[in-house]
């Protein structure tokens, strides 16, 4: 990967701004940024949603949060009571968050890039991203829950990481 391609990636503040725009449009409550993200935090009890970007830059955008946070996101977006939200609706809402943030990132990394449909895994701790390394991470508190947004760059031959 060239420096020019690296330069096209959003910085952490730019990624945070993209997330803030999504939150301001579709969710209630303020996101409070974590100044120094803990990259080693365990993903036990968390869900992960991601979209892949393929083109001049290839990688993926992931969103990780607790089950409680994911349910709160779905409750806000569907405007339902917590007891009414199904697992499918939770996955749908979290996937759409990844889709919106990833779509904005895609617009920054190159005109020829292709965005995948969102994927969601209910057990983030079980997920390994082979041949990918994390380049940018933003963490924020929302409704007493921690949300994490990361950009991963595909690197064939790399050992991979969480």
């Amino acid at each position, binding site marked *: 990967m060239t420096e020019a391609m690296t330069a096209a990636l959003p910085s952490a503040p730019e990624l945070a701004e993209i997330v803030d725009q*999504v939150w301001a*449009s*579709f969710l209630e409550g303020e996101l409070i940024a974590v100044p120094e993200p803990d990259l080693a935090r365990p993903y036990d009890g968390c869900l992960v949603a991601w979209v892949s970007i393929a083109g001049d830059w290839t990688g993926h955008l992931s969103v990780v949060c607790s089950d409680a946070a994911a349910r709160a996101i779905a409750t806000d977006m*569907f405007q339902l009571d917590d007891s009414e939200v199904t697992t499918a609706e939770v996955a749908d*809402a979290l996937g759409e968050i990844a*889709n919106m943030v990833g779509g904005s990132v895609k617009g920054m990394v190159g*005109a020829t890039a292709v965005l995948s*449909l969102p994927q969601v895994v209910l057990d983030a701790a079980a997920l390994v991203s082979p041949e990918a390394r994390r380049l940018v991470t933003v963490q924020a508190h929302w409704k007493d829950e921690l949300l994490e947004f990361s950009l991963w760059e595909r690197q064939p031959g790399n050992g991979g990481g969480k």
Partner: protein
Amino acid sequence: MRVLVADDSMVMRRIVVRTLRQAGFDCEEIIEAADGRQAYETTLSESPDLVLSDWNMPEMTGIESLRAIRAAGSDVTFGFVTSEGSEEMRAEAAAAGAAFLIAKPFTADTFRDVLEQYVA
């Protein structure tokens, strides 16, 4: 106004409908499609007044759906509501016959500003 909302995300279909109403548009009937092929087939069978479609969907993408709709002879007002809003995509959408492209995230004000010239 009869509106077809096409998006593979359930929650985004709901948000689009909610935003239409918040923007003050009177929707007498909402028809939903969960992928591009459904959007194409339902547009031809139901003849809505307006189609609001995601771009990135399974079966057929939104742009493939639009091209098929135009090839079938429909001149329905068709607009994209999508997470990707690059100039290249806007040009591709316009060339295929889209009236507009609204990028996610959006607000009711965005819907009002963009849609009022297309909706009676």
